[in-house]
């Protein structure tokens, strides 16, 4: 809420910063450092991201790839490779010990079974049935290790009529199947065709959000399963379908369709369900405007000098403004005002209004729309430590967004960003299975690791 009074912020903020600044994370214990996790993610960033959560909380994370490396390493913008590594994987191999194992070979599966006996958690993303076909699926492994938590992320899930589809798990496909791509994007200008306006089409999110959602939900599932295991000693199998994970956050369109027959369509930079809630053009770019509560919408009207002309004192709910026709009309009025100012001026006007405006401390949310470059240079985020480069012994200083939350007791931390394929073969195989150099040499020669 934009209008709540606050107590002594400075005292509290100093107290908490002393205890959760990422700078001191390395002095604190780790939440999951009692766990051994195997990550077999195959060409899925969802699995890689899921295991990162566990690794950043201190689990010993063994990342198992086929001898040539996982295909996901080649998924990099424009084919750019930095010191042998694709730029996505360069940010998501973090804190993981990378070993190789060709699971299509029987001897490799025996090695895997030995590791699986010791593991608390396995994350895997092979098409449903693949691990079973190799004789290393959940039902087999749990006989030896009943406390095992076995987590599978796939395109369609482990069961259901489409679970044996040949189609692999991709972020863009999951975005398409989630329902979100269809009704996100600019509206086609009246009288124009798609050939004339190839940008006014359903538009997906730029980042791999579906894969990240699937990985994040699975991390939640794994940790909930861990709690259950602490209580009962029992492990279990977990199943996530990527498009379902993304669709889960869709707040209303299915219910809306089911009860009204109305299919949600693109509404540009306005919002089907919210007013005032849009991107608005300015003199030098665009800003986000957020005034969901009546008083915040009134504050906006007041801030741009339209309190009387728009009759803001007579409004008693934002609900009427949410209707489609009203939004289209009112957005034109709003944009005519925002175009008179720069983005920076509007941000300042909003902050100033929160101090001296008629409705202060209530104000309208105004945020500039920044490029990633501007964001990375923003002093606020630099100060908060999210872009502090990770000093990696192999890749040097790498800027990869750090763990996304701060904790006083067991803060997450990024020790390294990535490792080359098979980098930890010797240390992991000798430590966990007692394999010596000559044995490893043989396995390597035979293409098993």
């Amino acid at each position: 809420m934009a209008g709540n009074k606050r107590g002594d912020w400075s005292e509290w903020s100093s107290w908490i910063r002393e205890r959760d600044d990422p700078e001191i994370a390395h002095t604190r214990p780790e939440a999951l450092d009692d766990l051994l996790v195997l990550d077999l993610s195959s060409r899925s960033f969802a699995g890689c991201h899921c295991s990162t959560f566990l690794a950043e909380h201190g689990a010993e994370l063994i990342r198992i790839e086929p001898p040539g490396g996982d295909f996901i390493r080649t998924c990099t913008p424009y084919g750019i490779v930095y010191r042998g590594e694709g730029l996505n994987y360069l940010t998501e191999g973090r804190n993981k010990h990378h070993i190789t194992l060709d699971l299509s070979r029987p001897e490799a599966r025996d090695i895997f079974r030995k590791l699986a006996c010791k593991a608390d958690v396995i994350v895997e993303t092979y098409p449903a049935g693949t691990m079973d076909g190799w004789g290393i699926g959940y039902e087999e492994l749990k006989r030896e290790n009943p406390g095992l938590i076995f987590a599978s992320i796939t395109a369609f899930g482990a069961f259901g009529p489409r679970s044996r589809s040949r189609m692999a798990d991709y972020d863009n496909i999951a975005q398409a199947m989630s329902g979100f791509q269809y009704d996100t994007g600019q509206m086609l200008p009246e009288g124009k065709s798609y050939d004339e306006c190839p940008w006014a089409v359903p538009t997906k999110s730029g980042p791999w959000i579906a894969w990240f959602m699937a990985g994040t939900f699975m991390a939640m599932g794994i940790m909930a399963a861990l709690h259950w295991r602490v209580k009962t000693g029992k492990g279990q199998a977990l199943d996530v379908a990527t498009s379902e994970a993304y669709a889960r956050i869709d707040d209303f369109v299915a219910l809306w369709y089911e009860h009204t027959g109305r299919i949600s369509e693109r509404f540009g930079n306005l919002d089907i369900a919210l007013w005032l809630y849009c991107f608005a053009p300015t003199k030098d770019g665009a800003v986000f405007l957020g005034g969901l509560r009546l008083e915040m919408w009134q504050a906006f009207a007041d801030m741009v000098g339209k309190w009387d002309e728009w009759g803001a004192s007579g409004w008693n709910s934002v609900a009427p403004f949410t209707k489609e026709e009203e939004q289209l009309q009112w957005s034109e009025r709003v944009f005519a005002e925002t175009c008179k100012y720069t983005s920076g001026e509007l941000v300042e006007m909003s902050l100033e209004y929160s101090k001296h405006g008629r409705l202060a401390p209530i104000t309208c949310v105004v945020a500039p729309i920044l490029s990633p470059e501007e964001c990375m240079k923003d002093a606020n985020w630099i100060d908060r430590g999210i872009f502090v480069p990770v000093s990696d012994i192999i890749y040097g200083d790498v800027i990869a967004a750090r763990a996304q939350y701060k904790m006083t007791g067991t803060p997450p931390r990024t020790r390294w960003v990535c490792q080359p394929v098979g980098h930890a073969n010797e240390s992991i195989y000798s430590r966990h299975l007692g394999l010596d150099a000559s044995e490893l040499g043989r396995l390597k020669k035979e293409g098993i690791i």
Partner: protein
Amino acid sequence: MAESTWKEYRKNKKSKPAPLEGIRVLEVCTMLLGPIGPALLAQLGAEVIRCEFPPMGDVTRSLNPFGWFYRDQSPLLLHINQNKYWVGLDLHTPGGQKTFCELAAQCDIVENNFRPGVLEHWNIGYLKIREINPGVIFLSKNGYGQWGQYARENRPSNDGASQALSGYSYMSRFPGQTPLKMRAYIGDNYGGMCAEVAVLAALHYRDRTGKGQFIEFSQTENIMRPMSWIWPYQQITGETPEPSGNRDVSICPADTFRSRDGVFVALAASTPEEFLGLCTAMGQPELAEDPRFRDHLARLKEENAVEILRVISEWIRTRSADEIEALAERHGFCATHLYTAKDLVEDAHLEARDFRTEIDDPMYGRYRNYEFPVKMSETPPKTEWSVRPVGFDNEYVMKRFLGKSDVQIRELYDAGALGKWKDAQGRRPPPGWDGKAGLRQA
């Protein structure tokens, strides 16, 4: 085999335990970022007590698509508040603050999403709650965190601000077009989820040591994390990354096209087998051996990617969406039309998996909504009941959790600490409520 693991999952779901049974959560949250997290814990079996200010409650109760309410209630509220107990507690009053503290003493996890310092103003900040409950896991979510310039300036935030400030919207659009606000409330909902990962990690640590902690969460910081390659790209190339519409610049081909029958179709085929399958389906298997396209890294290079996407685009214009989907399944690459709300509602696969699950609620009747998307073979997450009017569960919570008598509860009402709904849309019971359905006996 996997079949036996998941056999009759849907049928047996309700009779199995949930993983967080016995965990209690107290929330004073608003909008979407706040309530979604505790709802996910509630679907995992935690008992969640949700506090709102009476009589109007949370502003989410007013939100609706183009004026449509489901049985007089906001469909957005329904979606992010499953399985909760609803208390109307005025935290501006001493009695409300005291009751909040009494509840916090009974809970494992306390969550809020106000700007920094607001809870301190209400005398229910972390330092106070920690005194009462030393093992508490205390989560504060908001736009900019507890410290730093934006927190100092006391800037308000919400989902759209996080999409704008992070560069997320900048990267989600066609080149040269205005940055696009995603229809998904990614900053809020993805944010709420990630914060629960922190909470559950803290819970594991507490299971081991008995120790609680404070978790600080900024939704804007959070949404930078899934932007993966974008940050090292700037550092390494010295250039600003640019958006690419529906084309995935890290996977090739992966883009959205338009079919002969005018349907938008997303397609992906990156591995050698998939790419060969696609080229075969297109009747041009030789493309799979073309040195420009044979290797994935070569194919991703701008000029090669543009060329192969052009070839695919022209081919798709000669086929219907149905044909392309069938060819994808036959040749082993990926293609799908873009799902509409109708497609999701009618999808038999989602229903068989109980992702589209039915809620049979005493107040809101039978309707369907999305289930927690992790299937758990031993402890299935589940949706058990819907939302309630402001303060609906006051008596139940006061008696069951705090052991209060009818007289004590009356005193809290008289002091303005407890309250119930106003007779307004989204706040009151649905039309036709019989005065009894949904009430719980402590």
